[in-house]
């Protein structure tokens, strides 16, 4: 048990202990204990980072006879451990405010602690099996947290769909793991390079791993559960469905992309790009503040997966890092808004953007951090988002140049999504914070508590500033990154300037278009914006507002996004339901077969024997002479039978 591992175990166990102690302690002091535990573990993780700066420390032990598993702390895992524990600490802090008057607060913090524990386990594990153990625990804790308010209608269903979708992906993941363990003899991630990759099983195992990653990181076929997971408390969405859990899939891809065959890697790239595009489009038509952020997460994850696909694993990791900060920031500000509405305007739906507006007057700090994170997400220079996203786009350009003509779809989708992202984030910022207040009643001035609300928002906002990572805003080579992720190979792009040249105008253009249609003066029209179902009526409104050129672009946008969204709501999601339903119908059939055929067989045998009984009873009638007759007949038969042998 080397020295770093002792510290790692302390970091690992602290959140769990914090959660348990809080569960036992009173409702007042419990949450603070949990947050303190998280603070301690994030400090320790920074200290751990310094310890493992040069050589990774490995610990191995036999878990099952003949199977050895273990932990490995190298630069990537420790830095992510630091990220997760830091973000989780901020979320804990915010949750104290957010969940103050909720009866189940003790249960909430216990579950949050359990989640952080399992997430850290995923990051520390070296053996695929150990990773799978914590992988499932992460899925389980997300199920618990999504279904936290189990009394509300639709929440348990959302939790169940989330867990089952994850479960389906994890089944594929498990098959992949077992194939690797059985055929290559070792399951250690660090030894994946060394195994010989001939044999049919490598492809199948690769697909399994990709399946697992796509399930957890909500990529194309599996992303339907993420918007539904918004049913959980907002800090939960911030921590799990923005910063950490969904990133686990990307982390897995980064770790195991080594053994995947090249064809598979390029499909991953395309899938990532596609998800980015679909996520962005679906976010356009949303009215619920959290749904917009959820779809934007899907789209950003698409970027990371695309990054891994095109070979820019370090850029993808960096995007994961920055995305954790600004997306958590966005979600927490959304959480602050929802909490504000919940406290003051109980009757009005706190999540619907249509009755917000001019909230900047009421929540200045939230508005500031929201703005910073939003711009970082949109990818404007001087912000962290720009650095990481453009790194990926640059690499995708270079990759597509090498990969061949068909590969250009990836960068095209990537750049197009930059514009879309800028558009819907700009729209959301304008609609929520600027313009006039769209509610009947007047906004109530409410001073947010500094420590539990403002501090996390400010920290996250700072975290998503560009200069935090590199002094020169345009150069993708980052000194700070070296510190965090170890020595980076400098990006020697021949067309180093091309990516920013395309992405910046797109981002600014997207923002401008959003500004055009949701200027503060005009944002009042957003009040009766009715999307799903009556979508036609809304697109009409947008139509006469803008000139024909502009209007065709907007309507086209809405139509496609509505189709995409429709696609999601009517086809993919129902597919899973239908699958569920078919399971039920099919199993009802099975049950019927069970009752009809197999049981009836037994009854049939019983019936036959009863029939036999009846027939025999005839002989034992009452009249003796009949008996004698049968007996004599029997003897005669025997005599006949014998004499044909004589």
């Amino acid at each position: 048990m080397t020295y770093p591992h002792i510290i790692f175990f302390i970091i690992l166990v602290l959140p769990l202990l914090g959660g348990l102690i809080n569960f036992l302690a009173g409702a007042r002091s419990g949450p603070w204990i949990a947050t303190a535990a998280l603070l301690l573990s994030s400090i320790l993780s920074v200290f751990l980072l310094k310890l493992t700066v040069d050589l990774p420390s490995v610990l191995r032990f036999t878990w099952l006879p003949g199977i050895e598993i273990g932990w490995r702390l190298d630069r990537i895992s420790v830095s992510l451990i630091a990220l997760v524990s830091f973000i989780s600490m901020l979320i804990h802090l915010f949750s104290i405010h957010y969940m103050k008057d909720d009866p189940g607060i003790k249960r909430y913090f216990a579950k949050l602690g359990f989640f952080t524990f399992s997430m850290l386990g995923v990051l520390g594990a070296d053996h695929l099996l150990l990773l799978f153990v914590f992988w499932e625990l992460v899925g389980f804790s997300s199920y618990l947290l999504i279904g936290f308010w189990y009394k509300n209608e639709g929440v348990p269903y959302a939790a169940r769909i989330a867990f089952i979708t994850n479960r389906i992906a994890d089944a594929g993941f498990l098959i992949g793991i077992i194939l690797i363990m059985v055929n290559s003899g070792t399951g250690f991630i660090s030894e994946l390079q060394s195994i010989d990759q001939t044999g049919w099983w490598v492809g199948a195992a690769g697909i399994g791993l990709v399946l697992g990653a796509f399930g957890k990181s909500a990529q194309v076929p599996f992303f339907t559960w993420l918007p539904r997971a918004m049913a959980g408390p907002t800090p939960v969405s911030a921590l799990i469905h923005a910063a950490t859990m969904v990133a686990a899939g990307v982390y897995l891809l980064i770790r195991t992309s080594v053994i995947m065959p090249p064809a598979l890697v390029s499909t991953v790239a395309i899938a990532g790009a596609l998800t980015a595009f679909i996520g962005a489009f679906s976010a356009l038509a949303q009215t619920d503040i959290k749904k917009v952020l959820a779809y934007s997460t899907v789209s950003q994850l698409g970027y990371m997966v695309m990054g891994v696909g095109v070979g820019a694993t370090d850029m993808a990791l960096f995007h994961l890092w920055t995305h954790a900060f600004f997306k958590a920031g966005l979600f927490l500000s959304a959480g602050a808004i929802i909490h504000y509405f919940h406290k003051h305007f109980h009757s009005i739906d706190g999540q619907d953007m249509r009755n917000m507006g001019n909230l900047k007057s009421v929540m200045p700090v939230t508005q500031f951090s929201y703005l910073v994170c939003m711009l970082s997400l949109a990818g404007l220079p001087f912000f962290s988002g720009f650095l990481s996203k453009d790194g990926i786009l640059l690499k995708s350009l270079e990759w597509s140049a090498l990969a061949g003509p068909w590969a250009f779809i990836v960068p095209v989708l990537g750049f197009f999504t930059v514009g879309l992202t800028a558009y819907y984030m700009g729209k959301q910022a304008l609609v929520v914070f600027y313009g006039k207040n769209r509610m009947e009643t007047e906004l109530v001035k409410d001073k947010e508590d500094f420590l539990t609300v403002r501090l996390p928002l400010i920290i996250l906002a700072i975290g998503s500033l560009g200069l935090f990572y590199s002094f020169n805003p345009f150069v993708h080579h980052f000194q700070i990154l070296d510190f965090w992720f170890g020595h980076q190979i400098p990006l020697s792009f021949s067309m180093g300037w091309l990516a920013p040249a395309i992405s910046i105008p797109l981002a600014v253009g997207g923002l401008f278009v959003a500004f055009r249609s949701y200027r503060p003066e005009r944002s009042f029209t957003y009040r009766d914006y009715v999307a799903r179902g009556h979508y036609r009526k809304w697109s009409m409104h947008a139509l006469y507002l803008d000139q024909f050129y502009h209007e065709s672009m907007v309507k086209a946008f809405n139509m496609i996004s509505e189709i995409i969204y429709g696609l999601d709501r009517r086809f993919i999601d129902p597919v899973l339901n239908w699958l569920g339903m078919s399971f039920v119908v099919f199993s009802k059939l099975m049950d019927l077969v069970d009752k009809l055929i197999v049981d009836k067989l037994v009854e049939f045998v019983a019936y036959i024997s009863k029939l036999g009984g009846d027939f025999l009873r005839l002989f034992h009638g009452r009249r003796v002479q009949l008996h004698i007759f049968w007996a004599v007949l029997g003897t005669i038969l025997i005599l006949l039978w014998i004499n044909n042998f004589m």
Partner: protein
Amino acid sequence: MSIDPVYGLGLSAFLFSMGLLVIIIKRNAIFVLIGIELILNAANLNFVVFSSADPANTGQLFGVFSVVLAAAEAAIALAILLNIFKFYKSTDLHQLNRLKY
């Protein structure tokens, strides 16, 4: 002059089948008993006919024993029949159906 044994056997076979017929057909219990006696006597006849060929004449010995036993059987049968008559007031076999299965 000695009678050819075949005739004796033929007669006893005839008696045997008549006895069987009486047992099966007749309704009255006494006739059934008579039927049984007929078969027994057919067997006796057989014995006597066969013992003619046997120097030790064991057939006739057997005949004597079977007559004695037939008498014993008749005695027991009639005793039980008497008992039946006490209850059923008739010896008609079709009446004897108290024994439901």
